[in-house]
């Protein structure tokens, strides 16, 4: 019998349902910053559906997709908007490069913590936009 994963907190369940319903590429991470879901739009950006990859630890998903800084170096885990949102309970924003379905692609990323109790973040939602070098947000 396959061991069952622990029930997700309601706020993560609702967040996943929301992300499933929108066309903005988005990740959902849990309180350990592990990737627990990404939506179809993110799957199209990355070239693989979440069903194909499943849950990934922060080390796994960063080694798979990046991100990388302007010099092509991997961004430290501690510096990722995702980590900062979960750790600090504050939104975070960054521009960096990821490995996408179309090769290396510069994107903007905004992470929003999900805080349902005084005990801290239970995860974060991370949205992605293709980066416009002129500073405008691409459609």
């Amino acid at each position, binding site marked *: 019998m396959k061991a*069952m*994963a*622990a*029930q997700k*907190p*309601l706020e993560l369940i*609702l967040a996943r349902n*929301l992300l499933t319903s929108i066309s903005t590429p988005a990740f959902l991470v849990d309180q350990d910053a592990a990737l627990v879901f990404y939506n179809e739009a993110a799957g199209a950006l990355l070239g693989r559906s979440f069903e194909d990859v499943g849950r990934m630890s922060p080390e796994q998903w960063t080694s798979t997709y990046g991100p990388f800084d302007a010099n092509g170096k991997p961004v430290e885990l501690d510096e990722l908007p995702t980590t900062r949102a979960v750790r600090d309970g504050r939104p975070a924003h960054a521009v960096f490069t990821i490995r996408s379905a179309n090769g290396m692609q510069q994107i903007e990323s905004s992470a929003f913590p999900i805080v349902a109790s005084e005990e801290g973040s239970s995860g974060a939602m991370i949205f992605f936009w293709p980066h416009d070098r002129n500073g405008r947000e691409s459609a």
Partner: protein
Amino acid sequence: MRIKVWGARGSVPAPGPEMNRYGGNTSCVEVALASGEHIILDAGTGIRTLGLDLTTSPHVNILLTHLHLDHIQGLMFFPPCFRADADITIWGPASPEASLEDRVARYISAPLSPVEVRELPCDVSFRDTPPSEWQLGSATIRCEAINHRGPTLGFRITEGDTTLCYIPDHEPALGTVLADNEPEWISGYDLARDADLLIHDCQYADDEYPLHVGWGHSGMTDALTFASRVGARRLLLFHHDPLHADGFLDHLHAAARRRWGELGGDLVAVEMAMEGAELEVGPVVAPAGIATSA
């Protein structure tokens, strides 16, 4: 464990001759434990008549799933509230905004009420439900936040080998497909898993649900699918829409049994909550639905 339904209606009381069999009172279920203690689930208008019956049991625990009016409206008319020898503990969801007592007092206070909480002669205390299991008499209680509008709990009550799960207001299918979803992503899954009796929201017929998506309640097929996914042994469909008269609920019951049969379940395992109904709850060997929780 034995339960009695004192109110099975959702949203607002629905009196009238066409509602006589299923009843018009809002959510209230009494749980009589094998050890003799009683727990009351929600304080809709059904709790008023329950209170008339409580002549020798001055200690009462009331578990509130949430504070929508159809789940607290009967509190102000609960006879033990006006007995000096009564000891009432009210459990409900915590909030960062205000204490449980202050939130309930918004209803039991002027101008909505002629009395204030502090004026009640009974000994009443308000307790936030703890995040971990706790004991009430011989029962172990666990609660979890579930998908409804506003902070709302479901309760899992276990006594010995018997488990009752009460989720009267629940829309687990919102934004997802219940039949396909992994258990860890289904609201209320752990709470209801393998329950001997699941009391669950079934406010809408399937053709009514699309007009009420996001209102926090379930259509019939979603209620059945949830029960099937969690491996509930018996299902009591609850929180009837106030527009649903007896004849309509009879048809809904028949449709639910047909659908449950299509899912591979035992037809008699699906019942409609009916005011005044009493059910003996005990361990059942095999799940009635198609899916086990494995």
